[in-house]
């Protein structure tokens, strides 16, 4: 069984076939490029911080920048995002404060989530980026429900949700797609097929080679797109978003991409996949591909590259400095936000903790996954 189409826009030399270019203007193209580069730099910095023991954990998205940034770019800023943990470029695209992201890695007092979640589990309401959960797939049905609500309210918003190939096995994938199709909800399901769910390859995950074909059984279009081609991803998602906004229902988009790095800072992929495949995919690097396109259009040169890289590095490093100068959240914050107002039993438990004398137990443990 194969999906309806597989779209690439930019070829390996950066050329675009006639009629396929979405014709974005120069400034927008450069902005997209800058966000992709910044996302990559952020990954590199974070992995170093993790190795230095300055943050506890990290999930890189290296190799998947085109997939998540190109798709989110097809939305209006007011549309809602239901992310997984692997779309760090979207907050950057939508102008989130870098300090908020980095404070979240550290779990320090400047963290919007008050140090309650592991690194990269952002919550950024100001940019409609809904709180990231670790349990795989749960956001898929949330996106369907949010889109149903948009429809009930007669708003013209769209919800976009992200998940991996592994997540297509989850109950929420089934429920989410089923509900969305039944209620013709304005939602776009973006399955980032990076070929691996930790050590489990797609071939052991699904009886179908392609994820997009699953759409058919639910009653919605499924589209397969070259996930390392930012313009192709954008084009396909733009179409899906417009369809949703016109009230024609949901779409499943499968972005075919590759997780170039480890699953997370604690994974060693050399144990379960061969280096040759990784090398092959390296040659399809989404950033280099886009760079060649920009070069063709004379929107890229060495000086621009240098400036992108340096400003990304400077922005991130300055934010790291600012965050590292702050503290852990105060112990009482642990008891806040469980409920709107703190019930008596939690107040009692909080007092119990605050009245303890002597040093707290040492911070121990390292995350193994």
């Amino acid at each position, binding site marked *: 069984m194969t999906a309806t189409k597989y779209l690439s826009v930019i070829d390996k030399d950066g050329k675009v076939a006639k009629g396929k270019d979405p014709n974005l203007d120069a400034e927008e193209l450069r902005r997209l490029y800058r966000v992709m580069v910044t996302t990559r730099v952020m990954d590199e910095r974070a992995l170093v911080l993790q190795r230095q023991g300055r943050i506890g954990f990290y999930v890189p998205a290296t190799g998947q920048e085109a997939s998540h940034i190109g798709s989110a770019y097809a939305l209006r800023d007011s549309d809602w995002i239901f992310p997984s943990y692997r779309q760090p470029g979207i907050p950057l695209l939508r102008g989130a404060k870098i300090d908020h992201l980095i404070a979240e890695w550290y779990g320090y007092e400047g963290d919007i989530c008050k140090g*309650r979640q592991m690194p990269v589990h952002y919550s950024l309401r100001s940019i409609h980026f809904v709180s990231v959960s670790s349990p795989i797939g749960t956001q898929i049905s949330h996106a369907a429900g949010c889109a149903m609500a948009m429809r009930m309210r007669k708003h013209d918003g769209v919800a976009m949700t992200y998940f991996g190939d592994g997540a297509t096995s989850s*109950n929420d994938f089934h429920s989410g797609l089923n509900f969305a199709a039944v209620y013709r909800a304005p939602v776009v399901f973006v399955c980032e097929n990076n070929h691996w769910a930790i050590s489990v390859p797609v071939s052991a995950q699904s009886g179908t080679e392609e994820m997009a074909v699953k759409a058919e059984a639910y009653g919605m279009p499924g589209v397969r797109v070259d996930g390392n081609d930012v313009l192709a991803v954008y084009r396909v998602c733009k179409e899906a978003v417009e369809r949703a906004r016109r009230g024609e229902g949901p779409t499943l988009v499968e972005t075919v991409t590759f997780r170039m790095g480890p699953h997370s800072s604690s994974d060693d992929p050399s144990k379960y996949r061969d280096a040759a495949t990784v090398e092959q995919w390296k040659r399809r690097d989404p950033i280099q591909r886009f760079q060649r396109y920009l070069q063709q259009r004379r929107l890229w040169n060495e000086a621009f590259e240098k400036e992108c890289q340096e400003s990304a590095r400077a922005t991130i490093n300055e934010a790291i400095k600012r965050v590292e100068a702050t503290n852990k959240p105060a112990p009482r914050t*642990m008891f806040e936000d469980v409920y709107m107002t703190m019930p008596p039993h939690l107040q009692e438990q909080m007092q119990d903790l605050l009245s303890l004398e002597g040093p707290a137990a040492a911070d121990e443990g390292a*995350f193994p*996954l």
Partner: protein
Amino acid sequence: MTVMTLIQAVNDALKHEMRRDDRVVVFGEDVGVKGGVFLATEGLQAEFGKDRCFDTPLSECGIIGTAVGMALYGLRPIPEIQFLDFIYPAFDQIVSEAAKMRYRSGGEYTCPMVIRSPYGGGIKGGHYHSQSAEAYFCHTPGLKVVIPSTPADAKGLLIASIRDEDPVMFLEPKRIYRTLKQEVPEGEHVVPIGKGRIVREGKDATVIAYGAMVGICEQAAELAAKEGRSVEIVDPRTLVPLDEPLILDSVRKTGRCVVVYEAPRTCGYGAELAAIVAEKAIEYLEGPIVRVAGFDTPFPYTLDNLYMPDARRVLRGIQKTFQW
């Protein structure tokens, strides 16, 4: 005897049973080539092949649902749930199906299986890699719930669980997967389900703890000893069925009882322990039963060291039983 960590002891028990009984199959996310994210299943696929140790799609519901089917057909499935925090999609299959199969079929059908899962805090895992969800399962008739606190017990209890005719939740305290090393008997080693152990003898107060909290209570007992109080520690090892005589005998001897668990306090398993002691040994008590537990909040990330009971909190609990 071989010196092993708790995780190595789990691995050893799995190999031992897979060699002995070809009905035993191990499956779950990343348990094959990778050998599990904690390496509990390392080497199993190489030794026993892909039919007996295999990776599954990412669906806890599917993992347990198919395990039920395999058990019905006569296999001995040992599904792994990568973290106990991710077991909830399988809750229905565990609670409504596996746990009730024997009862609802009048004993015609049964579901002997061992659901293995790492649980508990202490690895900087935030609230989705740290939960202690044992109480949900203890509350479900039909399930046995086993929690080892040492490498030797991990091996012996896991082997007993695999040979048990009922579904067993085998919860592994991941915080001490590699921190404890101990001599573990080679080959056959069975620790019966339903028998607790006295971790440390004492005469002034009984502290009941399981999993990673046992070690914390040993630290607290040392601190209490400096204050002149002799603390006895009891590890029930299996929460369901519970070795009540061991616990009650200890409390009757010491006259004081502290219950320690890292799960949220409200309706935690320690509440059940406290109730049993109150019901059956209140006339021996010389002070209130004290619970030292996790707080009634989700498990935090940055402040996880403050969330989990530590030696000073356990010590204060011990002191409280004397302030009467």
